[in-house]
């Protein structure tokens, strides 16, 4: 993350400059956003609150030149910067979310000034309150199911004889080839059944404790750090009090020895369940 280093000779601007918006809440300013002022956000700028009426936003100053830089750097630097912003964004949202119900904003929501944030809060107060009411007491929990790659640790199916016997030439190469193909096909069908069963099992287990569900895209590639192939990646909207029960229910579906893994993340602020907030102009 060295490339995420941002020029910070002048870390914070005056309140007149552009501000990055992390989350909005109906809680009092003192109840969110690290009273000591030690909570920092994007580019390590201190996080502060903007309140209008009875809604409060968590914001921090951003420097215009950081904005201008985006898209101008080598890819590695851009990705490092993106990671920095994503993590900082989530860290601020999370700190507030521990204390109260918040609406997490989408990444890189930037207002030209603090006044503009205040205007947004005033014009959107009704929508914000409605959304906060809807999500009150609810958290998002991520549930990912994995199936270990068939090659891993020999696998549960007994295909050992074939691979072990490849040393000695089979009587008929053609027949051996066909047998191998058949075995592979069988194994694949078994795996598909296994995957479907695990996904169904995990979802059934979670559904009993949740009020809503969103299926995220399966995680693949370098960033997918799971213990196998990601076969389900769901977000569940769960009452705070039911998080434990959901966790227990879904992890009970796992059977690591058989290559069936379940990972639970969160609780998160309800990112996957918030609706657009419409501000009424005029």
């Amino acid at each position, binding site marked *: 993350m060295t490339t995420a280093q941002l020029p910070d000779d002048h870390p914070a601007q005056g309140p007149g400059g552009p501000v990055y918006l992390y989350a909005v809440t109906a809680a009092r300013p003192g109840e969110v956003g690290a009273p000591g002022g030690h909570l920092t956000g994007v580019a390590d700028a201190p996080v502060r609150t903007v309140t209008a009426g009875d809604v409060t936003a968590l914001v921090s100053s951003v420097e215009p030149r950081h904005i201008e830089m985006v898209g101008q750097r080598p890819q*590695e630097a851009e990705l490092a910067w*993106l990671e920095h912003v994503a993590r900082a964004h989530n860290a601020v949202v999370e700190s507030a979310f521990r204390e109260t119900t918040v609406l*997490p904003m989408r990444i890189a929501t930037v207002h030209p000034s603090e006044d503009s944030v205040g205007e947004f809060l005033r014009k*959107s107060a009704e929508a914000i309150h409605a959304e906060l009411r809807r999500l009150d007491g609810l958290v998002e929990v991520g549930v990912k199911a994995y199936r270990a790659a068939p090659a891993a640790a020999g696998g549960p199916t007994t295909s050992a004889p074939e691979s072990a016997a490849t040393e000695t030439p089979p009587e008929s190469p053609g027949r051996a080839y066909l047998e191998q193909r058949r075995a592979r096909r069988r194994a694949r069908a078994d795996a598909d059944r296994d995957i479907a069963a695990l996904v169904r099992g995990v979802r059934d287990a979670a559904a009993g404790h949740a009020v809503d569900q969103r299926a995220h895209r399966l995680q693949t590639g370098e960033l997918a750090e799971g213990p196998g192939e990601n076969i389900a990646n769901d977000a569940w909207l769960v009452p705070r009090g039911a*998080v434990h029960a959901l966790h227990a229910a879904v992890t009970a579906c796992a059977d690591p020895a058989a290559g069936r893994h379940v990972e639970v993340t969160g609780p998160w602020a309800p990112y996957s369940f918030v609706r657009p907030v419409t*501000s009424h102009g005029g």
Partner: protein
Amino acid sequence: MSLFGDGPGPAASGQGSSANLADILERVLDKGVVIAGDIQINLLDIELLTIKLRLLVASVDKAKEMGIDWWEHDPSLSSRARPAAGAVDGGPTTALEAENQRLREELRLLRDESRQAQLDRSPAPAETTKDDPAP
């Protein structure tokens, strides 16, 4: 944190800095509140950060290698997977997706504008971004 108490909960300390980047990205990039309406679209340069960041993600090849590729399959985020404008009615489009779609269009407009503005060396008017909020 307090949500899990002392129990053997998952990620009991919250997401923190150790959370899987993919988990964070798929939430902060793709989800979260999108502000609809006229508030945000009033200062072109600033609004551009949002746009740039999202376009950046979609344009970085490395991101794809890393598995950040979900926009490709999400009609609301991808220009490639996106059906022709106005053709989303038939699909199972959520309000958020529709909003995304609309914002995407605005982003595209803004970007073109800014490029134009940079060429012209004159401030681009924001009026074209204030198109009808109604889908």
